[in-house]
């Protein structure tokens, strides 16, 4: 092994290096290395917060009484760190590593790329800090205050410019370059569309749903697929995969479909039925691009699998790719009405989010970190076998536990409503919360194992070891002649299509439904400016109550007993809209109709476990008495 490494330093054996002997990618390697290191830093902090969250579900008093470590503030901080700090910066670093190599041209403006990195790091760190300090815009994944959104926008524009300038030099039909160019365009557009001001009420919920699907599919998934297209052939010592007709079909169907799955999370919501149906349809069609892309990869890699020496990197990449399918399955079951009636607002949502943050995309990114290690970190990665096994095992345990918890909760609610016991509210909640205690322990244990595995794998990539990445050079397989492109699409066409698909999705699942939902006749008054309840609402947003309590009654058996079914008018003029994500605690839409005693609610907020021993709500004794009183007034006045 050692001699192997030594030999390799003199005479690179990996195929790309042979091809690119005359090219020098030191600038790109330097830039991507910095991106990776910053991203890894974010991963570390993000995982720590993510673990604290899981621990707080098991032991609500853990690190209790500290304002900035309260559950509702940690949630947005952890997602900001992992989703933006780790995945976005990491995948941008991946693009800076891959695109110059695919285009056979080093980047020309490393200063621009590094300025972008600086701005993004400031924006994401600042955003996470702001929500911890209680400054939040309150919409999931869009919590950062406006000033940080603007800093991030400037950073993204610099990065996008830098990447497209290199990509323009590509001459070959390379899926890596296509996905890179398209995904960077989509990233900027998504950021703008999601943060566009001027939307209120349920309309802003539709905007946020579009943003989330677009960010996931058009940016994160597209960039991750670029990584897979690049890293797997490279590990096998093959030249870059050339685009075939399958690749073209893959990228365009992905670009067309994924953003349109946005309304899937609005099932049974207040928006039009047609919108929810669109979400369902495209959650089904989402399997099409995934099948095509995987087929294309397998086709392109015919005969080269045995050549992959670094099995750990390959495992990370393959497991990540396979988990894309799992992600699509979870999305579909969350969208289909029949299953959404069961899994909606349950731990199923947590499973989806966990997959997003530490699932397929994280695995794929780590696969690339290891593949790129010799160029970026100065040596081949250490054997990451243990890291991979732990991460995969832990993830199976966590996701499995969350899925089971979701089904269990959903059936409990529906069954209890059928027997008129209403386990979805008040004292009845004990039948929901009780059985989950053990499940949360499994989730915590699983996440600890995931975190250890990921940290081991990442450290193994950064601190060079003796793992051999060297693959025997192996020529490209002859592509199936019928799959060969007549004429590969030029990059200008890729760009046009990227804009076009984004505009189409934005029109169909964002702007049109926004217009429909903004009917002024639906506006209720609810102008409670300056009132105690208005102050209470501010506290509700600041403390992130919406991450554990929904404010949406759906027209299904599960929600019987929660009061009138939610309509658009219920959310009119609200900014941010507090529909919620998940019910770790009961729905609060019409709490006042069930519990009118504000003093009792205030007492419950300050010491939840004195009134209900099974509650997992944080103690809000760190808030001023006035704030808690205002919060209670807001909750009672919700009716």
């Amino acid at each position, binding site marked *: 092994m050692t001699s192997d490494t030594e030999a390799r330093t003199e005479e690179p054996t990996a195929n790309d290096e042979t091809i690119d002997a005359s090219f020098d990618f030191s600038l790109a390697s330097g830039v991507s290395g910095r991106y990776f290191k910053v991203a890894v830093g974010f991963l570390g902090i993000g995982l720590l917060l993510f673990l604290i969250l899981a621990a707080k579900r098991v032991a609500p008093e853990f690190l209790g009484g500290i304002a900035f470590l309260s559950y509702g503030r940690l949630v947005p901080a952890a997602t900001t760190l992992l989703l933006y700090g780790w995945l976005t910066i990491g995948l941008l670093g991946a693009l800076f590593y891959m695109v110059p190599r695919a285009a056979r041209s080093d980047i020309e403006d490393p200063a621009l790329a590094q300025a972008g990195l600086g701005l993004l790091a400031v924006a994401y760190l600042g955003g996470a800090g702001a929500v911890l300090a209680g400054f939040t815009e309150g919409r999931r994944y869009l919590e950062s205050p406006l000033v940080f959104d603007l800093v991030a926008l400037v950073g993204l524009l610099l990065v996008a410019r830098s990447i497209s300038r290199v990509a323009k030099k590509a001459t070959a039909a390379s899926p890596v370059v296509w996905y890179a160019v398209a995904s960077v365009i989509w990233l900027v557009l998504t950021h703008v569309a999601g943060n566009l001001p001027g939307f209120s009420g349920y309309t802003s919920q539709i905007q946020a749903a579009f943003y989330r699907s677009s960010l996931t599919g058009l940016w994160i998934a597209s960039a991750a697929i670029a990584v897979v297209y690049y890293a797997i052939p490279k590990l096998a010592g093959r030249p870059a995969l050339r685009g075939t007709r399958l690749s073209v079909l893959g990228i365009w169907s992905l670009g067309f479909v994924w953003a349109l799955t946005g309304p899937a999370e609005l099932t049974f919501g207040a928006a039009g039925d*047609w919108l929810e149906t669109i979400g369902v349809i495209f959650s089904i069609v989402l399997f099409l691009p995934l099948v095509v892309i995987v*087929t294309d990869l397998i086709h392109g890699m015919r005969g080269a699998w*045995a050549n992959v020496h670094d099995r750990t990197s390959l495992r990370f990449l393959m497991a990540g790719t396979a988990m894309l399918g799992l992600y699509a399955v979870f999305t579909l079951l969350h969208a289909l009405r029949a299953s959404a009636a069961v899994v909606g607002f349950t731990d199923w949502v947590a499973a989806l989010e966990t997959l997003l943050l530490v699932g397929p995309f994280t695995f794929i990114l780590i696969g690339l970190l290891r593949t790129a290690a010799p160029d970026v970190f100065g040596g081949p990665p250490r054997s990451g076998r243990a890291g991979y096994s732990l991460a995969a095992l832990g993830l199976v345990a966590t996701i499995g536990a969350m899925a089971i918890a979701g089904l269990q909760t959903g059936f409990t609610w529906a069954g209890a409503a059928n027997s008129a016991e209403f386990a979805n509210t008040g004292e009845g909640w004990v039948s929901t919360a009780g059985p989950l205690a053990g499940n949360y322990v499994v989730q915590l244990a699983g996440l600890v194992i995931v975190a250890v595995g990921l940290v081991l794998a990442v450290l193994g990539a950064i601190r060079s070891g003796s793992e051999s990445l060297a693959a*025997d050079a192996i020529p490209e397989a002859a592509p199936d002649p019928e799959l060969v492109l007549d004429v590969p699409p030029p990059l200008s066409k890729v760009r046009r299509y990227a804009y076009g698909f984004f505009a189409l999705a934005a029109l169909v699942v964002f702007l049109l439904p926004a217009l429909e939902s903004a009917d002024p006749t639906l506006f209720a008054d609810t102008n409670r400016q300056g009132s105690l309840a208005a102050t209470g609402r501010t506290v509700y947003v600041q403390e992130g109550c919406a991450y554990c309590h929904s404010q949406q009654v759906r*027209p299904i058996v599960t929600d019987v007993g929660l009061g009138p079914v939610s309509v658009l008018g219920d959310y009119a003029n609200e900014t941010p809209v507090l529909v919620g994500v998940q019910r770790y605690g009961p729905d609060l839409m019409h709490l006042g109709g069930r519990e009118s005693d504000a003093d009792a609610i205030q007492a419950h907020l300050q010491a939840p476990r004195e009134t209900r021993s099974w509650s997992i709500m944080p103690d809000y004794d760190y808030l001023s008495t006035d704030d808690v009183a205002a919060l209670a007034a807001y909750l009672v006045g919700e009716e």
Partner: protein
Amino acid sequence: MEQFLRDLESSLGVPAELLERAAEARAEAAGSSAENVVRSWAGVDAAPAAAPDPSPVAPVPQQVVAPIEAASAPVTPPAAAAPVVAAGAPQEILSDLESSLGVPAELLERAAEARAEAAGSSAENVVRSWAGVDAAPAAAPAPTQPASAPAAPDPAAPTAAAPAPAAPAPVAESGGPGVEVLESEPIAEVEAAEDVVVEPGGVLAGFPGWLSAALLAIPILALSYVLIAPNGPGCGSSGQLAIDAETGLAENCDGTEYGVDATSFFTIGADIYTGAGKCAGCHGDDGGGGTGPAFAGGAVLVTFPTGSCADHIAWVEIGTDDWPEATYGANNTPVGGASASMPGFGELSPEDLAAVVIYERVAFGGQSLADAEADCGTAELEIAGG
């Protein structure tokens, strides 16, 4: 250079653009200029047409085609090179070929093995045939073959590299380590060459069969969802309930309050109404009438409007025979007029009487359940199990 390209285009049938890119790639590999490459091609002019049958040490134009074989060719993972050939292949022939072609015997051996597997023959036969025809090895891998052959083995199998027809030609012609040449220039040239050979078919042409099926099935599945439930499933499916227009509460699809359906006045009334010997016999299951007058479409509320539920109950309880007056109802309908006599249902309890009347008023009269219950004074009654 443009002139040469156009000449080549017409004589080869390959688009000039592709030729140019092939030339550039070749030039880059050879450290020459693209123009020189094109000139050298044009100098031989007719040669490319003979490409499928070149000698191993063919002139430059053969390059246009050769990389196809190269692309699928000779470097198999060491593990995949099974020793079977060595046992069966006549070493003399191989060494003869080695000296005459200048190709290492080992490569020939592996090429023969791969070719044999693709052709279903034995490696020995392949080697013999090469020796017999002498120049044949180069001709053997016709341009179409490498493309079609790899379809046979399982794409995921690690040994899939082996069966690709390995051609000695590219190794020989480059005179150096074949792999390097192949790697440095495959992209443009293979494309150019493929374009000579391939006439792409429809959109799905060349896709694996199962993939084409999946590509059709997935949208059809999605489409059928739209056709079956254009605006989502109706009330009653997927756990969906109806919504009361006034209160906004979720309710049963028949408009009754959710959770108390088994014991509501409405459902009890419905059971009684349709029971044997009761109302439905004369007034119809759907209230459309029969021997007795019709209730449907609000008719029942014309006779007993809102506020006169007590009269309605009394009429059902007493019937025509013992009715104390000549007319009944708000519109003074004559007793025993157009219709036959109605029996009294005094045997029913006050709760049941109220229930059946509520059912008639809600289901056929169109009164809301809440109004009917208030009207009929159910607050003072207690139904079984309620």
